[in-house]
């Protein structure tokens, strides 16, 4: 009768791969988590840029060059959209990138195109309950809308739209 000892062979071979498995798991998890963080942030900045642009083009302004309040309200709407996606205001920027009328002037006029950009700095590593570390990828989105040529409350004439 021969006895085979439950020797060291298989066990040692198995233990060797434990650190490797752990390394693969940690690195892989960080890679996937960061990729997902960027995709998730992109969804948030897309929504922020869209909300800001929609809010701006629907605002009532007193004059074509007096759109500061409308811009501030639009930026607030953008930040609120980011907050609704669980994003920190300190890491984000929402701004009016361009406002150009058909004749090339910058002003809140009929048919002018307003473009808003939203930006979010995605942290490199984000841990539950603790938060994010490091300055990572900059995720941006741009959305533009036309100011309605025929609605009330917009200075100027729609003739320039044609």
């Amino acid at each position, binding site marked *: 009768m021969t006895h085979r000892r*439950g020797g060291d062979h298989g066990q040692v071979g198995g233990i060797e*791969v*434990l650190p490797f*498995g752990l390394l693969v*798991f940690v690195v892989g998890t960080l890679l996937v988590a960061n*990729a997902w963080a960027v995709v998730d942030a992109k969804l948030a900045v897309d929504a922020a840029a869209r909300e800001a642009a929609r809010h701006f083009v629907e605002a009532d302004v007193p004059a074509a060059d007096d759109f500061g309040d409308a811009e501030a309200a639009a930026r607030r709407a953008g930040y609120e959209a980011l907050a609704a996606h669980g994003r920190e205001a300190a890491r984000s920027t929402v701004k009016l990138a361009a406002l150009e009328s058909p004749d090339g002037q910058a002003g809140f006029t009929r048919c002018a195109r307003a473009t808003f950009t939203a930006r979010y700095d995605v942290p490199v590593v984000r841990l539950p309950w603790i938060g994010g570390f490091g300055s990572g990828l900059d995720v941006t989105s741009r*959305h533009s809308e*036309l100011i309605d*040529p025929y609605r009330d409350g917009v200075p100027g004439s729609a003739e320039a739209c*044609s």
Partner: protein
Amino acid sequence: MGRDRGNALMLMPAGLLIVLVLASIAVDMSVVHLRKRQAFELAAAAANDAATAGVDQGRLRTTHDYVLDPARARAVVADVVAASELASELAGPPVVTVIGAGVRVELALEADYIFADVVPGAPDGTEVSASATATTAAAP
């Protein structure tokens, strides 16, 4: 018994790799979902702009009829798409159809995978499409 224990340990990295591959597939699918949403938002914004800025102004001022000019609507949609950051991702030119006082915009975007790209033989991405219709109505 020792052999059994060793085999179980060998399975661990394989199991972890399987989990990571599944997570990678989930991220790639979320990229496709993101592109689908972006395509719909772009189509909606383009249709919304074209439904008003695409009107035939000459007819509106002479007969007060609100009639959309298909050529003008197409030009407005082209402007919206060109101003978008997704212009380079378009799979083809947007299809613009004027239906009465409404505009229907259909477009397709390329969605590139992040992780499947590194697998030999796997597709680099896919194509997503979306459509949106905007119709004008008199203010209440």
